């Protein structure tokens, strides 16, 4: 099967600074791999299978060799599409790019809680079904894709026909990030460039409230006193 993994399609929210005015200052932050991007790649690889094909796709100004350093044979980028506030517009740009990559069975993207609308909107643009919160995937004999996902305390198994859009979530840190040698080799490989027109944005973000700051408490004194005070505080807050 052929699966597309989409990566580095947003900036890390950790690089954003919310000013007192409510304005968000992104500084010079570039598009970067999200926490769920490695999980999306694993799902794409599982769907493609040993003989299949995984194609990497990214947009914007991030380092596109990310997927190549992780064993993907070919990767494409649409550098003109910058970070957009409108999640549907981001999805629209991604859909344009996906259509340029020929027939595919699955498009896998990180199911990022900071951008919850992108994966469903991508499915809408493509006219395909979508499943979110995907933890793992496998191929079944009849050409269907079988995924698992956590639903509360249960693990749900779903069988799907293709083509499909999957939103993947990571269970933890990336198991084995590539070393320097793999990264250097990946950087030397060619990356295809796609021409995608940045869609008009229908949504703009006008204000971001600063996250509520719960004042930090500093407990001084001798280590033993401080530890005792900490226990008292935690008990007081019902945490112990």
């Amino acid at each position, binding site marked *: 099967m052929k699966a597309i993994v989409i990566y580095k399609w947003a900036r890390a929210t950790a690089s954003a*600074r919310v*000013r*007192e005015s409510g304005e968000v200052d992104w*500084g*010079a932050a*570039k598009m970067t791999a999200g926490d769920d991007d490695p999980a999306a790649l694993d799902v794409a690889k599982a769907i493609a299978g040993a003989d299949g094909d995984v194609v990497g796709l990214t947009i914007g100004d991030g380092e596109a060799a990310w997927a190549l350093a992780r064993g993907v044979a070919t990767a494409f980028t649409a550098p003109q599409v910058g970070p957009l506030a409108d999640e549907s517009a981001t999805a629209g740009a991604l859909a344009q790019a996906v259509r340029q990559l020929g027939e595919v069975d699955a498009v896998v993207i990180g199911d990022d809680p900071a951008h919850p609308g992108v994966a469903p909107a991508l499915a809408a643009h493509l006219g395909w079904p979508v499943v979110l919160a995907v933890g793992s995937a496998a191929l079944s004999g009849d050409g269907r894709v079988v995924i698992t996902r956590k639903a509360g305390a249960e693990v749900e198994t779903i069988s799907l026909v293709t083509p499909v859009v999957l939103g993947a979530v990571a269970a933890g840190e990336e198991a084995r990030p590539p*070393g*320097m*040698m793999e*990264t*250097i080799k990946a*950087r030397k490989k060619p990356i295809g460039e796609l021409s995608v027109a940045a869609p008009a944005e229908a949504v703009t973000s006008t204000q971001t409230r600063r996250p509520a700051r719960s004042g930090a408490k500093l407990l001084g004194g001798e280590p033993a006193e401080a530890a005792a005070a900490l226990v008292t505080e935690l008990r007081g807050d019902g945490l112990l």
Partner: protein
Amino acid sequence: MTADADADVDFDVIVVGAGVAGCVSAFQLATAGRGVLLVERGAEPGAKALSGGVFYCRVMEQVFPGFVEAAPVERVITRNCLSFLNPSSFVNIDYGDQRLASPVNAVSVLRAKLDAWLAEQCESAGAMVMPGFRVDRLLIEDGQVRGIGAGEDELRCKVVIAADGVNSFVSRDAGLRSKDRTNHLAVGVKSVIGLDRAVIEDRFNLEDGQGAAYAVVGDCTKGVGGGGFMYTNLESVSIGVVLRLDDLKRRGASATDLHDGFLNHRFVAPFLKGGELLEYGAHLVAEGGLAMIRDLVKPGLVVIGEAAGLALNTGLTVRGMDLAAGSAIAAARAVDGALEAGDYSPATLGEYRQSLQECFVGRDMETFRRAPAFLEGTRMFNDYGPLLADVFHGVYNLDLRPRRHLLKTARAALRSSPVGWLDLARDGWNALRAL
């Protein structure tokens, strides 16, 4: 090195650390057509550098003509103020000069922006910039440095340039530096306070795009060896204290308390009023001057920038970035020569040591050799501020008693100060020699 070993390399040069020193040397060597790998442990170049500073940037013109226009600099520093700060008085030596604007002598910079720009220049020049990897060992064979290790990977090269900053593990690994004595180290605690561009220009009395740099001694450190600094960026003010570790420890003082006290000082707080805290952090600074450097060269290795102990705190200026750039230029030239000759022995690479000594870096390090020792004297931090304030109080406090000449006023102030005539003479002499 044999031809075999030469054929077996991944890069001509591997530079460890994409600060000012690393980027400048990588850029120079890539421009000369050498295969360069620039490794930086931060996720992005500049990501790890707290801060910024006042960059005495004339040296950058040699590397990037038009540096001030092209690079992301904040303000052109045209006002330098040395401030003796006391609890309820201060005496400033405030020097403003438009000659400092043309040619530009110093700029304020924020490293997150500057280092990212420098790394981009390296990339455009053909260097491979590799952020997100920490070099954790040197490959040394028969006393010759042959590359670096990072995790499972080993990369071979002809010359390694260690530009990994104040805590340089690379030069320690190579046996070029011992563990630093603590009085060679200082801790810097710093905040960046956001303010409107126009508000900054009003408060600091600046023309558009120009900036001020304050060096402060006295009450900002409550007598701990070190000083305070404050300088203007385009839309923020960087302010903090640099404190000698040994003195801090001896007095049981807290660096963060001193930092907070400085920002809230009655004469400092008005500059920052209504500002928004954008960044806060702490960092080690090497302050040893020449005494810290054991050697700069080993077969296949050169050490540059703050990794080589090249930093100067003269009391009037804190310098590190310009020395980093200067040493990088000298090293790049020597390494290029060594690559040309195919000889990476200390005899050839030692060219670097030589040209460093001959350029402004070596000369200034030598000139200010005594500054660290002079700055260890405590009178500078405790006693001169009140003394100066008493002199000026005698001059300006027209309390209807008959005035005395300045000399007499000064003499009276000196009598009630812990500073004796002899101290004054000795410190004056030492200051002239050290600074």
